[in-house]
């Protein structure tokens, strides 16, 4: 296939944990390059480990490979090899066409110089000629929305303005065949971010893209396939993006101990729709975009005038991605059932912790916490990942029955 722009075959890289040794190995590696020693049969020396091992993939024009993995999984190392900053210790990397990277925005900015001067420095570092920069100069400043500050020193800029300028230079000037994106898809405030996003997309459409991100919605939306890395190795490389994301989330240890605080109120069981009720620490399954009826079996020591129930869905990154609140009518002492209707559960397929908080809301200004389950159990949302679009925490309506 002639349109394969990135081909990575069995690429591997060894790093050293110990700084002093690392430096010495560096000297030795340089020396062996000069002695034309054959590629050292990669035997790990003391304190060395594989930062990347056996990485193989291809990316064609128009495709986007989402590179995901936990911190330290070797994503940045791989990007650096692709960018030609460091040499692979094994394998072979082949890139076709111009390589551009949205990494280190604003490289070479000197805070004492003006925005105008810095645009030229930065653009030049990105490999463009003075003429090319001049041609697009106005476009850059317009994109960064810094028309009034063109001749002010960059150090008088807020950090947001600086990063906007750096982003604008990169996004307007580089027109790559191979595009490397490391977390920077968008910068600045909300309005600016969507503009960034569109600009990056325009750039990405014509290129073979590698995107490193910890934001799974972003990965799901942009990637045509994903490569999940774990401890330097490819754990999964698939064009089933949803499955890849699942693999990634699977790496996080499930919260085993749930912290339960309870004052005279406890949940005996929870059921979704007509499923069997599960007890503390259990697992509930639901399809995305289904209307869900949550039934909670609770037990109170004393009657309550009204109770506030807060249910939160916590994703693998410990972010609350969905939350519903409702206030019950008067509850008697002893057992009773609370039913909460959640229409079209708008959650990305994946695993979530279900966090539950009960408060006595008789005095709404000073609610008294009755019980807190952190979490009560796991919720598995099933479904096709391709369609969803939600990225931010949602507060969905609930109807109490």
């Amino acid at each position, binding site marked *: 296939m*002639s349109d394969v722009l990135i081909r990575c075959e069995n690429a591997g*890289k060894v*790093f050293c944990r110990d700084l002093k040794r*690392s*430096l010495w*190995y*560096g*000297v030795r*590696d*340089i020396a*062996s*390059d*000069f002695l*034309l*020693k054959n*590629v050292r049969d990669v035997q790990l020396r003391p304190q060395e480990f594989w930062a990347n091992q056996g990485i193989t993939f291809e990316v064609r024009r128009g495709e986007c490979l989402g590179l995901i993995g936990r911190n330290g999984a070797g994503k*940045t190392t791989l990007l*650096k*090899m692709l*960018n*030609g*900053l*460091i*040499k*692979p*210790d*094994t*394998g*072979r*990397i*082949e*890139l*076709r*066409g*111009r*390589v*551009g*990277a949205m*990494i*280190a925005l604003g*490289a*070479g900015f*000197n805070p*004492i*110089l003006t925005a105008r*001067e810095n645009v*030229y*420095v930065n653009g*030049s*570092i*990105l*490999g*463009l*000629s*003075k003429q090319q920069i001049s041609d697009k100069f106005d476009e850059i400043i317009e994109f960064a929305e810094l028309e009034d500050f063109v001749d002010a020193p960059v150090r008088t800029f807020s950090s947001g303005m600086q990063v906007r300028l750096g982003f604008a230079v990169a996004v307007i000037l580089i027109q790559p*065949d191979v595009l490397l994106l490391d977390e920077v898809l968008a910068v600045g405030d909300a309005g600016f971010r969507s503009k960034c996003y569109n600009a990056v997309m325009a750039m990405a459409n014509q290129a073979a893209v590698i995107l490193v991100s910890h934001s799974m919605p972003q990965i799901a939306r942009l990637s045509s396939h994903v490569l999940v890395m774990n401890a330097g190795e490819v754990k999964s490389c698939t064009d089933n993006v949803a499955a890849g994301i699942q693999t990634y989330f699977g790496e996080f240890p499930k919260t085993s101990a749930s912290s339960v605080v309870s004052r005279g109120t406890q949940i005996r069981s929870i059921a979704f729709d007509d499923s069997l009720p599960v007890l503390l620490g259990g697992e509930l399954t639901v399809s995305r975009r289904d209307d869900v009826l949550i039934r909670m079996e609770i037990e109170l020591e004393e009657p309550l005038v009204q109770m506030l129930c807060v249910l939160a869905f916590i994703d693998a990154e410990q972010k609350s991605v969905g939350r519903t609140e409702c206030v019950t009518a008067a509850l008697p002492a002893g057992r009773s059932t609370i039913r909460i209707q959640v229409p079209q559960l708008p959650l990305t397929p994946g695993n979530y912790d279900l966090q539950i908080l009960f408060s006595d809301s008789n005095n709404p200004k000073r609610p008294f916490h009755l019980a807190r389950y952190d979490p009560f159990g796991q919720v598995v949302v099933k479904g096709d990942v391709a369609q969803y679009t939600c990225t931010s925490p949602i507060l969905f309506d609930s109807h109490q029955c």
Partner: protein
Amino acid sequence: MKSQSLSPEKCERVSGPCTNDVVVVYTPDSLLRHPGQVLAEIFRDLWRTRELTWILFCRDMKAQFRQSILGYAWLVAPPLVSAAAWYLLNRSGLMKIDTGDQPVAQFVVVGTTLWSAFSAVLMTPMDAIENGKPVFTKLNVPIEAFILAATGSVVFNLVISSTVLVALLLAIGVDARITFLLFPFAASSVLAMGFTLGMLLAPLSALYADVRRAVSAFLGLAMFTVPVIFQVPEDDSGMIAGVIGNNPLTPAIALSRDALLTGNLDWLSRTIVWLGACCVLTLASVFVLRIAKPHIITRMGM
């Protein structure tokens, strides 16, 4: 399609439907397997990044004194102050400086001007790599451009301080002579030697901080192995005299001074020989830096 990718480690053109595409291949093989290719790339990159070098040079120039009132005066001050110190030491009789038949003041001021330029240019490649770390570890840019730009600043500084120096010499009554025209060549040779030494040390210095510390620590001592504040001893039997006589830097410094003060060209041939050696060594050092670059960046961390 033309490649914009900077300093690919190995370029090969492949046949096939897209013959215009430039393919970059990274493998663990030593780049030295294709020394001709590396050499061609060095020169191609030097040409291709001439604008980058110029823009970086301008950046450093503009930034250097923007936050300063006296500005370029600071280029002239250090060698003058240093010369004044030696002059005063000599006058007070604390130290006897042997300057031959030359007045101490003018003898010393030429020497210290050249020496401070030499010290600066020696540190330049190492400092440029250190300062550029945040860029080099993230973007694929030619390190040589950053080094050249920084060296450009030193050259510029020397031009300014030499101009002031010559004006000063004329003011204190030194006769203008035709050999003044040789001074730029001789002074450039001094810089070339510092640059070569700095470039040779740069790859190691990028790994070990010891190198820069050692260089700055020994620069003070090294000053006495070249005729900066005294003349080359006539009698070359002693150890010190031997060191000074054989120091590659001695001819260039002595020639620079003679060009301004005496018009004596005895050191010219030796300066040319050493300058030739410098050119070869500099090319070699660029080569070494090329080969070492990915290894250096590997060890620089994220």
